[in-house]
């Protein structure tokens, strides 16, 4: 009988694989949720800024003034741009989506057909993503209910992307560590759960040894049932049957 080696390798591997699967799902869902929470917070913040800036513009639109005639519009826009690092540029658009006034620093092509379409549909606000950067559109309405124009905030998605990747990296590193710990624990668990089964297998080996021992000693043994002695007697008889069959054919 050799040393007691634990041979149920596949079982341990599958237990480890289950742990890894749980951790992967964990990291994936956490990062996804983090992205949602962060984006939500950022958009709430930008909405507040947009509301602030659009207040004077909105009241001007309400009484039917042209947006470009609003006094110190440039200063209002510039001030809003500096209120937040994430904002790259602000634009004031007329009802067709054409730019009336804008601050410097724009990285996207501001005039797009979709914007005009969004305004024509009468959307009061919209957020969409373009090449990793975001746009927030807030429309002003005239007293008649028609769209008079819109404020568009362009803001960088770079911080958001960095934050999400940083989170993913951080969690993945931790997960790797946990993976090692939980693999060790689950390997130990599988061993302890299947120890009983291993003893059954060991019984076969013991019986095998006993049967061959009987054979080389030339013992005659009585038929027994149950336990390793039962197996040993079965092996012994099978061996004798085999020898008979072999010698009978020769």
């Amino acid at each position, binding site marked *: 009988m050799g040393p007691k080696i634990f041979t149920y390798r596949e079982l341990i591997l599958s237990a480890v694989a*289950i742990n890894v699967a749980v951790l992967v799902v964990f990291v994936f869902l*956490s990062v996804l949720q*983090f992205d949602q929470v962060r984006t939500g917070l950022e958009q709430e913040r930008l909405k507040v800024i947009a509301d602030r800036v659009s207040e004077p513009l909105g009241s001007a639109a309400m009484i039917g003034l042209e947006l470009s005639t609003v006094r110190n519009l440039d200063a209002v826009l510039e001030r809003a741009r500096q209120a937040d690092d994430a904002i790259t540029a602000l634009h004031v658009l007329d009802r067709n989506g054409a730019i009336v006034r804008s601050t410097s620093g724009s990285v996207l092509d501001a005039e797009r057909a979709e914007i005009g379409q969004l305004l024509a549909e009468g959307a009061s606000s919209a957020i969409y993503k373009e090449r990793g950067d975001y746009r927030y559109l807030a429309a002003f309405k005239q007293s008649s209910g028609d769209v008079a124009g819109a404020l568009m905030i362009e803001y960088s998605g770079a911080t958001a992307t960095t934050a999400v990747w940083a989170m993913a990296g951080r969690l993945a590193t931790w997960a790797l560590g946990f993976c090692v710990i939980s693999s060790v624990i689950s390997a130990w*668990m599988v061993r302890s759960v299947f120890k*009983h*089964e291993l003893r059954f297998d060991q019984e076969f080996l013991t019986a095998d040894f006993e049967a061959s021992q009987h054979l080389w000693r030339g013992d005659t043994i009585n038929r027994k049932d149950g336990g390793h002695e039962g197996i040993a007697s079965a092996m012994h008889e*099978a061996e004798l*049957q085999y020898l008979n069959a072999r010698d009978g054919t020769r």
Partner: protein
Amino acid sequence: MRNRGAPSQKTLRLRVTLALTLVIAFTIASFSTVVIRAYDDAIEPELRQRMDLLGTMLRDDLQRTLELGIPIDAVAGFDEKVAETVADFPEIRRVKIVANNREVLLDLENGDAGGGLQNVLGAQTWTNTFSVLARSRIVAEIELSGDPRQIETRLLRALLDISVIALAIIFLGVEVILALAARNIWIPRLAVTGLLEEQRRGCFDKVIDVPSGGQMRRLAERLNDRALHLARLNSREKADPRRFEISLPLSGRLPMFLLALGTETTASFLPVMARNAERMAALPGAVAAALPLILYLLAAAVSAPLASRVITRVGPQKAFFCAVPPIITGLVVMSVSSELAGIAFGRMIVGAGYTLAAVSCSAYMLRAGEHGAAAETQASLNTALYGGVLAGSVIGGVIAFEVGYSAAILLGAATIICAWFAARWGLSGPAGAVRHSNRAAGVEKQSPLSFFLTVACLAVPMSAATAIVVWYLVPMTLSQQGYETTIIARIVMLYYLSAILIAPLAGYLSNAIGFNERLAAVMGAILAAVALLGAGFASLGPIFVVALLGFGHAILRAPLYALVVFYCGRKASWIAGYRFAERLGAIVAFVAIFFATPENSDPSLIFASLGILSLSGAVIFGMISSSRTKRRETPV
């Protein structure tokens, strides 16, 4: 020699489940704290920025007022404006404006101060002050204190999702480990034992598969070699030794589990998806939502008797293989089509294929476990089945929410392919092949009236309640109330969870107390009726309705099956008839309820009528069966 593998399997399943649950619970608990810490750290800059924004906004407002020459303590109505502004910032707990003379001008608590979640993990609250200037003089200070607790509650949602998915993975893991244990431990051991027994009798014409590793390998090789050697010596008269194969009922579990998982990823959103799909204008929304379910039931009902015929002709394994292509086709059709017709048609094919495959697994396990009790084998199959449905509904719900409906359905299709591989291994052996011998044994006396009574009073209300409440009504009403598919999936899951957890417990308890099957069945049916009536009349929450219904059905299911098997005298065609009648009854109940209730009526009406159906079924069954037993017992 005794069959050594079998008795330890049941306790082993429990131990594997416990061990896996423990390890994974430990991992999740400790990893959650790490995740929450990481969240707090990562979200802090964003929160600080928001606080800065709020501070400057409040200061600007205040300064503008002060510039007009109004003294700071005379600013009236400012608190309302502040409250309005702060309402957009749920993480700000408190706003305080203190004048130069330490007089508190404003002290505002934001949000629900006492209630909500306690901040257990110790994320710090922080404060920031902004000075208010009036003509180059500081006249007041704005103090803001923030609290990330509000943000942490959003994180808890993710943790809940993760724990539920972990539960699904644990169920999958238990099945995989059991299948591997069967493959690596029990089947080789049984094969060696069986072969040894043959050789002891002097039969050397069979060989077994040699396990790839493990301690039985050398033994198996030696036993095989005897047969091979003798075959070579006698090569004139005899052919090569035949293969000696073992079928273990346990190995049918993994295909069943994967099959249920793959077909039920839609559990939490199918009616919603069907209602939102394109359809003919004349069709009302409620009918559209119910159509895939009704067609599914119809296909299942029709194919149940056919399935048993196919299985006798080609054997369970081939029957399972035949069922895979239609299921995959159906799922793919469902995932690509945006029209109701496609979805309903796809679901119908899935229903037919699923029934064939499920009946194959059941037939395999019953054949393989010839000597064991049929009820126990069926219970083992049910655990695998409901575990699969649970895992499917949970995983499908999360994927549908994060990615989309079609991704969830396609994942199901991929799982069905895995089920095919599992069946290739798991449904092999003599029990998976065609059975040539005519087995006349086992057919006992039948009692048609009791059979009919059981099916009509217990089985039909049960399957009708499952189909209408769990598959249709709960997803529909919850989604109308604005819940997301992940939450619906969690609630739908409760039905199957109680089916898995309660069924073994109930079986054990009713054995221990000495309840007979009729009493246990009636009790289960009454519990289910209580759940339904509670929903109908007392507006019980959907969580409790689903859980209690699952509880009642879990108690009912095992004795119901035992009764049906007993009354039909183990005749296979009658059991197929039972499956057919059960589904047909569900369809009839479904349609009847739809025509009886006006569209968009209160669902409590449906709950109440289902409850009355279940209750009256249970009462009628209880009364008649008790009077029948008395009549039968009196002459003795």
